[in-house]
């Protein structure tokens, strides 16, 4: 069974569109994260959710919004997509911030 899954794996869309990326974890973890990895391999935290509450919100545009319908899911909604949003987005989960993070396979977003 896949511990952390993301859909879709690839997403190609045009500027100005709105898209969503879904994430699910079956590990029973309390915390989930969204990361953005750019072409230079920098892996930057975007959001984290702990027990359905947003813990941090880094300096990301408000076009990005996390939605957590339950503890096992943390979806990422992106409005008015821009060229600079092109990157690989990773979802992850952990039992705590000290614990091992389990990452999903990533979603490669390409904005044209």
């Amino acid at each position: 069974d896949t511990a952390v899954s993301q859909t879709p794996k690839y997403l190609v869309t045009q500027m100005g569109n709105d898209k969503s990326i879904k994430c699910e974890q079956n590990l029973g973890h309390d915390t989930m994260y969204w990361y953005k990895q750019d072409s230079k391999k920098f892996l930057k935290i975007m959001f984290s959710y702990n027990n359905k509450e947003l813990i941090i919100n880094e300096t990301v545009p408000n076009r990005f919004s996390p939605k957590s319908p339950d503890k096992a899911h943390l979806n990422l909604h992106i409005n008015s997509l821009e060229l600079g949003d092109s990157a690989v987005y990773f979802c992850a989960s952990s039992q705590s911030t000290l614990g091992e993070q389990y990452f999903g396979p990533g979603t490669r977003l390409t904005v044209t």
Partner: protein
Amino acid sequence: LAKTTQPISMDSYEGQEVNITCSHNNIATNDYITWYQQFPSQGPRFIIQGYKTKVTNEVASLFIPADRKSSTLSLPRVSLSDTAVYYCLVAGPNDYKLSFGAGTTVTVRA
């Protein structure tokens, strides 16, 4: 959050030991040091975690000096399949401002 500094890249050959040092001068008392490995087109994967001295598991060792301002990940007898990006992460309890930086690209050659 303790900022970390790692070398951008390292080259090695099969069978050699690879040591990657991470600097974290501002590490807090409650912070732990964790290393992750990432292969192309995959998410990062946990390797090892430690607080002080030495930690060893089946894939790596982590050496942390007494002042904890740096740490060294040691990969014994690397193979071609160890070619990956290695990230050092320093974080403490309830420390949600996590950032992995750019990592160290390790290339193992035959």
